[in-house]
């Protein structure tokens, strides 16, 4: 294939003809040519062998883009650890602008629990790859800089209202909480204000709310504090226990890994 692809593209830069490439994320098509629409490393995804498709050109929004031709991609990092390749210069924090889309897995904080629904504010849109293997904070994509800090400050009631206006809001309706016995769901026994919930987006919703579901074993409350204010650990799919007092509370618990 054409070897003239630049390693790094800027918006408006011509990348290749549509006869040999199809346009992926971060690109657009203009007059039978694929053009970059964001600045970043160019990624070529070869077509599936056997199928008659074309290679997909995209411009990466993520720093962990594989196969960009730039040998500067530390892919695996432990949570909290700095990538070794960037020890020389202080690495600027990478910002993403990924909106929640249908089927994306998000972490959200419960802000309000009502009889028929729970209101949550979306903290993080998890990476596609991260959604299958769990929550690895260093692999998530969001414009939030420090996911650990966001999550650990979650149950603190002081910093709820201030930043929620800047986050995308979502609803978990009563019938979307779990897959079985939907009509017996009592929202108060599923979520409490301040819980961190993992859910998937089922709809972009109306002007103000996305719609989330937790009707899967791996979805539900991942972090919660008890009434005494201590962190709780999950003991079953519907119960979490205070690590200090041993008090049990009801939640729709996500399967731990």
């Amino acid at each position, binding site marked *: 294939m054409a070897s003239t692809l630049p390693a*790094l*593209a*800027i*918006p*408006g*830069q*011509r990348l290749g003809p549509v006869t040999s490439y199809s346009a992926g994320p*971060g690109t*657009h098509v*203009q007059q039978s040519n694929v*053009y970059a*629409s*964001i*600045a*970043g*490393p160019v990624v070529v995804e070869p077509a599936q062998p056997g199928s008659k498709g074309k290679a997909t050109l995209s411009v990466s*929004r993520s*720093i962990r883009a594989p196969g*960009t031709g*730039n040998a*500067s991609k530390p892919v695996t990092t432990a949570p909290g650890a700095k990538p070794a*390749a*960037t020890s020389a*210069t202080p*690495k*600027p*924090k*990478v*910002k*993403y*602008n990924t*909106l929640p889309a249908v089927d994306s897995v998000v972490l959200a904080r419960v802000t309000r629990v009502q009889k028929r629904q729970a209101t949550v504010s979306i903290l993080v849109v998890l990476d596609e790859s991260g959604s299958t293997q769990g929550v690895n904070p260093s692999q998530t994509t969001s*414009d939030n800089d420090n996911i650990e800090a966001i999550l650990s400050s979650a149950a603190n009631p002081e910093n709820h209202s201030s930043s929620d*206006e*800047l*986050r*995308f*809001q979502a609803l978990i309706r009563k019938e979307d909480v779990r897959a079985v016995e939907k009509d017996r769901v009592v929202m108060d026994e599923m979520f409490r204000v301040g819980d961190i919930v993992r859910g998937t987006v089922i709809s*972009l919703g*109306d*002007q*103000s709310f996305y719609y989330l579901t937790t009707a899967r074993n791996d979805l539900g409350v991942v972090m919660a504090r008890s009434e005494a204010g201590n962190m709780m650990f999950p003991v079953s799919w519907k119960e979490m226990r205070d690590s200090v007092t041993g008090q049990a509370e009801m939640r729709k618990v996500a399967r731990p890994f």
Partner: protein
Amino acid sequence: MTDRRRINGPPSGTRPAVFASSLNSASDIATGRPQRQRQPNELRKIFLKTGLIPSASGSAYLEYEPSASLAAARSSPKSLIPPSSALKLACTVHGPKPLPRSATFSPNLVLTTHIKYAPFAARKRKGHIRDASERDLGVHLETALRGVIVAERWPKSGLDITITILEAEDDRWWGDAPDSHDAPWGMMNVLAGCITAASAAISDARIDCLDLIAGGVAAIVADESEDGEAKPKLMLDTDPAEHKAILSACVVAYMPSRDEITEIWLKGDSSKALLGPDDKRSGHEALLDGAVDAARGAHSVLAEAVRESAERFAGLAPGGGATQ
């Protein structure tokens, strides 16, 4: 209505101080006025750097090279007043972020632009509340950017673009010479700078764009030559302080790779331009072409700054300023 929140001035009113003119003679006026040292088609250097404001999702800082007269005035100061000013502005992009709760559903990105002069930006002090000219500039900028952003890729979200002008271009030379023109020509240079900086900041925020959009200014200038005759000529990237009479000026927002214009602002009488003998273009065509040429020049700086932003993003190189 009285203002109870601030300490007010005396109710009886005060007289503004009247200062003696620092220009005493006609020779002062002749020597004090800055002169254009550049060729008619030569642009000022541009400094453009992205990512300077960490709390914003994208940001850019733009600065024009001060005119040669400023450097001369610094080395041998005749007056405390600098002869001309050069544009300096900072642009921040916040978003995409959720729309306010009162907003209706939008399948597209909702763009809002704010341009604000710092109170000290111009020779005439600006208030803290945006005035009509600032709102006007904001609308022009929004038109320019709306054509370049791929809005349908960001449903249900808003993008706020805020530009603070730290030093504005002069509208005219500060001296009260009788032959000074008096129209807000400086605003057009400010708009061109705003467009270029906003494009860099949007790219820095990684919002999908069709192209990098650059602003450029051209003007038809009737300066007296040696024989005292005013010959209207086309000049690119005019500094209004350097010219006695700007007949008309034009600013465009231009996408070089698509050869498209998203915003035109043409002001004044463009019919009097004296172009070359074999130049069949009308005055405003020549103006537009000139502004597009200026935008192409700005685009080369813009592309370099955005490439730098992408490199910094990809962790390839430490950041630095881009200059033309």
